């Protein structure tokens, strides 16, 4: 009975997903914004991506 209750605890399931997607989203936004900021400071010749 206890196992049944805990293995269906939706707030923990949703929490795990929110933490994962939230952390990935936060990191993605942070690196993209940092890239934009740095791109303005670096000469154009050094900004050639494959």
């Amino acid at each position, binding site marked *: 009975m*206890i*196992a*049944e209750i*805990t*293995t*269906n*605890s*939706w707030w*923990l*399931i949703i*929490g*795990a*997903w929110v*933490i*994962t*997607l939230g*952390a*990935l989203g936060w*990191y*993605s936004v942070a*690196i*993209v914004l*940092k*890239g*934009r900021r*740095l*791109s*303005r*400071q*670096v*000469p*154009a*010749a*050094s*900004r*050639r*991506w*494959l």
Partner: protein
Amino acid sequence: MTDIAPDSPAGAPTSTSSRATRVLGVLSLAGLALTVVYAFAITGPDVRLGNSVRIMYVHVPTVTAAYCLMIANALFSGYTLWKRSTFSDLAAHACAEVGVLMLGLTLVVGAIWGRMTWGAFWVWDARLTTTALLFLMYIGYLAIRGLPASPRVRATRSAIVGIAAAMLIPIVHKSVEWWASLHQNETVLGKVNPNISGNQYFTLMLAMVTFLLVAVWMAMHRFRVLWLIEQLDVVGVDEAIEARRAENIGVGQ
């Protein structure tokens, strides 16, 4: 530092995006949306794990992505030691950082799953302990990269640590077989009884491919940010040399 090229002449990019990252980004977002739909709306609860099985669709993909990034880190590290390449040194750094993020998420989400299935967020189980050790090794790798040193010394030190840390991956992976463990056996390789199949299997594979795409997208952007920082250092050194030359000319007159 002043803005040098805000208008990006000659078609130079104004961010770390390129066609490749945009395609990867769109595929990653579509994959994530589809994974969420499959994980919550299409697959049902597991016979043994109940609804907690839905955590598997983020737990296994994050650790798979972390392993891949850490192996890539070791390969780039080896190439750095061999060829003294700045490119591979920065690529190794990018892979390690995104790998640490993925492995950190694996530990956090795994702790939540452990609370639901074992009744505890943490136990000193072989798989959990070796994974925590692997995580700490890569935190150490990133710490070493942050130490003040010449680029060559920093690249050598971190490459050695990166290769040493990757040697722990097979031990983490096999820990559930080598030692008595609460952690379940290898899910994807079919060593769980009953075998994963049907929608559960498809959802897990979809999530793994998606998280690998996300990891590659992140590593590419992070590499480009590191490359820009490296270029800024070069610009800074050039400016310092120019300033020094100007001073010398002033003194000579």
